[in-house]
């Protein structure tokens, strides 16, 4: 857990005071998601009981559940308790009707925009990508604004997230209800073609094809763009005292909703202390603990009751889980190069998606 004022140690000591005889040891994880995933694969596939409670990325829950690495929490985490969390976080924790993890901290993709620029024209924040593109083109070039809409188009998980959000805006998804890959190829291709058009039409600069969160955040933070798709962490940076865009940025929901991110807590299936582990999960996901952890790492609670700002609450309510499947890693790794090929113009969108589907047909198993 990064950050100087890491609240975790204090929370763990408090838990120990409330549960005499139990000591909790925190173990730091590697920094990047890929390496964390590898750490868990090695330890959990080896049925190691070296840790009892684990923090996992929302996109891993289904995979870990199918692998038999984490305990089914459906009975302990009952319907009433689940209802206290945003529905999208429960969706991400559910596989085959069972719940495998408890939502801990939450992230959601959202749209940052230059309030001052839109206000000057008397425009409201865009609610569709078409409207966003029109506003971006109209405002680009005004008063030092070089760019319209910034997003994450580098070949990595972030690109999958951005394209998924475009899919959702058009009413389609990567997986259909019965698990079929790319159920509406035409709609998916249209969404991807729109992303490509953002670049060719000048709505988005060419640099988005190499941009991750930080590259795009810095560019927008320097006052160079009208719109930015990013996670909530950037808001505090834009409002920092020395920020060139301080007081000029507002947030709104992405058209079609933003992708859910964040972390859940689960229990190692090999644990020798399931009861105590469950107590700890419950303790750490309480409202008070969620708020402290969230504040420290720039994430948010998974409980609507903890939101004071109605604007933020409505954005978080609109969060959508990425496809919940044990094969998410394969799905994403296969899509990444093809989506990148489509937005850089190397392949027409329909062919890129066809190629991805061809590979997935061989790699995905029931």
């Amino acid at each position, binding site marked *: 857990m990064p950050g100087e004022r890491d609240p975790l140690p204090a929370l763990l000591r408090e838990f120990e005071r409330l549960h005499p005889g139990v000591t909790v040891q925190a173990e730091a994880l590697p920094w990047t998601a890929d390496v964390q*995933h590898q750490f868990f694969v090695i330890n959990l596939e080896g049925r190691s009981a070296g840790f009892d409670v684990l923090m996992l990325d929302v996109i891993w829950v289904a995979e870990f559940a199918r692998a038999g690495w984490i305990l089914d929490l459906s009975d302990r985490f009952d319907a009433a308790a689940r209802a206290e969390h945003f529905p999208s976080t429960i969706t991400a924790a559910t596989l085959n009707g069972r719940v495998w993890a408890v939502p801990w901290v939450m992230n959601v993709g959202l749209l940052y925009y230059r309030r001052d620029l839109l206000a000057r024209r008397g425009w409201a924040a865009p609610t569709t990508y078409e409207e966003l593109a029109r506003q971006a083109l109209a405002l680009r070039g005004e008063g030092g604004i070089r760019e319209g809409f910034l997003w994450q*188009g*580098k*070949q990595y998980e972030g690109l999958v997230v951005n394209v998924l959000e475009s899919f959702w805006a058009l009413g389609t998804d990567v997986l259909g209800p019965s698990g079929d890959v790319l159920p509406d190829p035409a709609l998916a291709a249209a969404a991807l073609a729109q992303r490509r058009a953002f670049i060719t039409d000048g709505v988005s600069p060419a*640099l988005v*094809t190499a941009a991750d969160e930080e590259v795009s955040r810095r560019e927008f933070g320097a006052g160079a763009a009208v719109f930015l798709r990013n996670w909530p962490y950037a808001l505090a940076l834009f409002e920092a005292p020395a920020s060139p865009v301080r007081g000029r940025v507002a947030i709104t929901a992405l058209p079609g909703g933003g992708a859910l991110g964040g972390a859940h807590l689960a229990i190692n299936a090999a644990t020798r202390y399931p009861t105590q582990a469950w107590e700890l999960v419950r303790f750490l996901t309480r409202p008070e603990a969620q708020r402290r952890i969230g504040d420290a790492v720039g994430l948010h609670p998974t409980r609507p009751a903890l939101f004071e700002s109605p604007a933020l609450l409505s954005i978080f309510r609109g969060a959508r889980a990425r496809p919940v499947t044990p094969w998410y890693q394969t799905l994403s790794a296969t899509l*990444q190069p093809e989506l990148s090929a489509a937005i850089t113009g190397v392949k027409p969108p329909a062919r890129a998606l066809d190629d991805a589907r061809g590979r997935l047909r061989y790699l995905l198993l029931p």
Partner: protein
Amino acid sequence: MIARGERRFGLLLAAPALLVLGAVTLYPVAHVLALSLQRRVPIFGVADWVGLANYAFLTRDPAFWNAARVTVVFVIASVAVELALGVAVALALHRQQRWRAIALALLLLPWCLPGVVTARTFEWIYHPTSGLAGAVARRLGAGAPNWLGDPSLSLAALIAADVWRTMPFVALLCYARLLGIPGEVYEAATVDGAGRAATLRAITLPLLAPVLLMVALFRTLDALRAFDLMFVLTGGGPAATTETLALFAYRSLFQTLHLGYGAAVSTVVFVLVGATATLYLAAGRADATR
């Protein structure tokens, strides 16, 4: 003639070493070969023998062919540029009298850096808005190239980074060989009226050839398993234009855990590396007997 008893004793002495070698080479190779004949996703308990299905899919997998093409282009371009620049730098060093020690030390620096540090450095050099390479390009009136996001530039950008990092290796080995060429050879050439170009062609390069061949072998085998620069800088993108076979195999083996398919890819890389090494060694033998 060695007596039979002596030979047997020799084999006995060599046995532990052979055993260890077998354990760390033959066994893993056999294991990977066996894996490549299976559909194997251990975390989900998937383990089925599928014969050559993985190889059959590989032959029609566009992503595999793309990775193969990227790897071949990367190997040929980076090794060629490294050899040419390396020889040039070695010749310049050889002629240099003053500051030679400092030049040598500076030359060594890029080669000493860990690959990931090099990659992170180039990440800043190629930064789309505040990178050094972009600033230079703008100064030259070439606009603001999107080095790592433009499919027509990305591989070249990575080759440049690789050349920066490994050219010194080529230069140093060539320089060492140049030091070993006796001065009398050059004096004789001058007496015979050979110009600089003729001396380079008739003396220096032929004498460098064996070293160059070794260096080329090392560099080619290294480039064939290129991984760290692309992993850190581009993740194989954009549009998989920097996805080498090593990165492709990594994705199958460690990221998505399709061990069977990943093993098939690794086997192909293994054969490719073996064939390349054999070719080089044959060329070396031909050169030696000439």
